């Protein structure tokens, strides 16, 4: 039996929010299921792929997180959201030079947005750490 699901944008946003809540509540499996579901509904969305990566990041699995962020960049090569998270993951792997280059790229792509602000703060952190 085949199911046809056509969720509205509001419903997808609600699923996304639920995923972030599960992730922050450390219900990682539920968060992964939700974000994987959103990715299946929106296969071209870089945001769902990045969100899925952040779950692995929260579990300290930085390599898998990086795989998802790179996949997000394949879907949208100009995704500042993906670049900022990629930079963050490399920073937490203590690969500071790679981190810096991706964070700079995020700032270039979205100079005034929250993503750039996140990248700037991460660059400050990178400069503070030995």
């Amino acid at each position, binding site marked *: 039996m085949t199911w046809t699901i056509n969720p509205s944008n509001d419903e997808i946003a609600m699923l996304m929010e639920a995923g972030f809540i599960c992730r922050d509540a450390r219900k990682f499996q539920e968060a992964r299921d939700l974000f994987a579901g959103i990715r299946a509904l929106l296969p071209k*969305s870089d945001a769902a792929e990045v969100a899925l990566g952040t779950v692995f990041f929260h579990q300290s699995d930085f390599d898998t997180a990086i795989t998802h962020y790179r996949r997000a960049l394949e879907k949208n090569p100009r995704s500042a959201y993906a670049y900022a998270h990629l930079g963050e993951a490399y920073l*937490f792997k203590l690969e500071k030079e790679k981190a810096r280059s991706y964070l700079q790229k995020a700032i270039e792509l979205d100079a005034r947005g929250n993503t750039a602000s*996140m990248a700037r703060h991460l660059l400050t952190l990178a400069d*503070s750490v030995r």
Partner: protein
Amino acid sequence: MSIPKPESIIPSPQFNLADILQYTEPKQPGRFRRILGGIAGSAANAVVPGMGTLLGDLIGGGIAGPTGGLLGPSAQFLQLQQQMEIEQRAFETVSAILKVRHDCAMDAIRNMKS
């Protein structure tokens, strides 16, 4: 009138080897800083993994700075004040990152709606 001898006015310095070593060897992070670094690291780890490592390093002695030496008490207080300022900046930076990460997540949700 008798003039006092200099030795009776200025006490002769009495240092043992341990005192000299304490002032001349590079300083290790204090016990308090190590503990604070550990606590802050654990707290940050609960929110963002890895943040604890970075914050712990930052506070627990990872900052490049003066390494002791022949410092007087006022210089040591100045150093302590600088360390406290560095800690405060570290907390502010981490707090700002957590806030802005949340804002980014909210942006992603909002973008899904449009």
